[in-house]
């Protein structure tokens, strides 16, 4: 392997490998080494690869950033954290600062048997189990994350436990100029139910890199609502890889809002492994300035009688660029699959760009699948209608734009505080959004 970034991360690995949780355990050390080798063999993805055709990591290649050293770690106050939290009133809050669990900023009152905390503790306590993060589809970035991850969320909800109040997990970038590799393992046992809000936020606008790894396992009849709010800084590169295994009759609801970062990339893979499994994916991306936001989803229908629905919406302003690649795979045994996908985009500027590509790969013969993509501008008829009711042009534009984006939140309407927090996050990142605050939306 010759590229500079690969060498850089190989050196970083050498520097930190003995400091990683559970280091010294042969199995664990081996798992990490193998992951690093796998990364080195592949290198960072390039635009020559079909999956990365529209998203260049040249900036990362040119200037890789080191992992943070203990002595450099910033210690934000609770007030600073709550100020940027999407749900400051959350009963259960787990905060990771620069990739490491911050117990002093966290609190929770979860039922006995629920495990919610730092993955580093679990790995250090039980290194023989290895990192519970492996994937049947390891990409270079997944391998890099696996090798270098120091910490992340460890969440296990036992069978039959339903958690009423949402859990907020914050990944906060407090120190500029570093790489973080948060990796999280989430397991809902049979019939368990919870809403998790995963917020990635920076307290600075300097360069930073986050490679986020999340593994979700839903046992049968589990019900998991997974909200991801990406509000990173203007110069952060945020790459995330989420893989979800869904068992019989279990439900996975995903709402992803990509509102920050200079380059943001979400890889979301859902495997519907047994009959009756369901996935609902909603997403919105709002690139402006020179932001680049990319969403790649893969929904794999492995078993019969599974359903999936995807709706992604883009609002692209200034020189913002968006990519949507939605892949639905229906394997040969997956009869009676019902899969829908849609991607709608609003282009607000001549310099904005969207590349959208739905992809259906169907190997079963008795299935119902649909997909569609649209690209449009604000509708002058809608704008005139609002103006003719006394709403000024700027507010009318903001309102129509907001309404377009906010539809991805409709499944959360019943969770009032969360819904309000996410709507606010959305309109503060929208062109002209400040006007909407005046209208007390």
């Amino acid at each position, binding site marked *: 392997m010759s590229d500079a970034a690969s060498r850089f991360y190989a050196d970083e690995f050498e520097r930190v490998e003995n400091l990683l949780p559970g280091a010294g355990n042969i199995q664990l050390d081996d798992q990490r080494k193998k992951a690093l080798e796998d990364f080195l063999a592949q290198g960072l993805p390039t635009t020559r690869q079909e999956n990365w055709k529209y998203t260049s990591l040249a900036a990362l290649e040119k200037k890789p950033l080191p992992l943070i050293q203990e002595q450099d770690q910033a210690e934000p106050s609770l007030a600073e954290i709550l100020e940027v939290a999407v749900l400051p009133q959350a009963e259960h809050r787990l905060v990771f600062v620069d990739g490491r669990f911050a117990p002093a900023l966290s609190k929770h009152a979860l039922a006995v048997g629920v495990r919610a905390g730092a993955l580093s503790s679990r790995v250090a306590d039980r290194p023989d189990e290895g990192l519970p993060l492996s994937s049947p589809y390891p990409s270079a970035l997944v391998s890099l994350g696996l090798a270098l991850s120091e910490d992340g969320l460890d969440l296990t909800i036992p069978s039959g436990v339903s958690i009423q109040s949402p859990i907020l997990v914050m990944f906060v970038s407090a120190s500029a100029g570093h790489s973080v590799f948060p990796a999280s393992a989430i397991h809902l046992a049979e019939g368990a139910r919870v809403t998790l809000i995963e917020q990635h936020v920076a307290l600075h606008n300097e360069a930073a890199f986050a490679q986020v790894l999340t593994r979700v396992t839903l046992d049968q009849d589990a019900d998991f609502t997974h909200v991801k709010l990406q509000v990173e800084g203007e110069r952060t590169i945020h790459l995330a890889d989420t893989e979800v295994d869904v068992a019989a009759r279990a439900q996975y609801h995903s709402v992803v809002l990509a509102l920050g970062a200079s380059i943001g990339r979400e890889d979301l893979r859902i495997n519907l492994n047994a009959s009756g499994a369901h996935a609902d994916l909603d997403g919105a991306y709002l690139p402006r300035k020179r932001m680049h936001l990319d969403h790649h989803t893969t929904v794999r229908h492995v078993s019969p009688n599974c359903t999936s629905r995807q709706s992604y919406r883009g609002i692209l302003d200034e020189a913002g660029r968006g990519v949507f690649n939605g892949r639905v795979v229906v394997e040969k045994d997956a009869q009676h699959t019902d899969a829908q996908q849609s991607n709608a985009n609003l282009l607000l500027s001549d310099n904005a760009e969207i590349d959208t590509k739905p992809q259906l790969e169907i190997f079963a013969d008795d299935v119902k699948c649909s997909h569609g993509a649209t690209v449009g501008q604000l509708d002058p008829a809608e704008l*005139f*209608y609002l103006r*003719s009711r*006394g*709403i000024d*042009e700027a507010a009318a534009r903001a309102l129509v734009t907001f*309404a*377009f984006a906010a*539809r991805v939140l409709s499944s959360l309407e019943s969770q009032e505080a969360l819904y309000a927090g996410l709507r606010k996050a959305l309109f503060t990142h929208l062109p002209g959004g400040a006007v909407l605050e005046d*209208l007390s939306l």
Partner: protein
Amino acid sequence: MLHIKDLTAEVDGKPILKGINLTVNAGEIHAVMGPNGSGKSTLASILAGRDGYEITGGSVMYQGKDLLDMPAEDRARDGVFLAFQYPVEIPGVSNIYLLKAAVNARRRHSGMQELDAMDFLSLVKEKVRFMEMDEKMLYRAVNEGFSGGEKKRNEILQMIMLEPTLALLDETDSGLDIDALKVVSKGVNSLRSPERAMILVTHYQRLLDYITPDYVHVLSAGRIIKSGGPELALELERQGYAWLTGDQKDAPSKGVAQ
């Protein structure tokens, strides 16, 4: 209140209005009738400030101000209201939100205090009952999935909430069954007052059975070719527009004649 003088306008280089002269005083209801393509909806749209029309001549003064100089939202705040022929669906924006934003924009502009949530809600509920509508529609997206009749009722609901000084009703009767027509007319009639003026743009006499105008004007090929009292509308109903325009296609069709 409204003085239209020698107004000419075109769309995509094609003249639509060819010299309109019309004066509307406070307290009056004017019906503007005419065959399809005569320019009557264009006139309503231009008065409300819709883009896409080139004003090539003439003037429109409203309460002493040059109406054509004002952006659409300022006209609305100053009391001009257009009930749309084809009300627009706005997914994601609820009716109640739009009503509140509209009412408060008008109140702010007139130096009145904004209505608080409670006062607003009780007012809007009263008006919804008056328009014989379902309260649930308040929380639905603006016009989304509404039937033709529901959309027209919704226009009149907005109108009676906003209490305009000059109301323009563009083909409000089209697509309404008789019950909806009665409710819509009730809404319109409830706004009749000496301070307020209305222009009803309509193809048929039908609406005028419920809302009696003070004046009727016939628009044809971009000009007002005849003006009169309510009896003129009845005459048109009997004879069709051909009697005035001399065009055979404007003769009454079987479906229209009563």
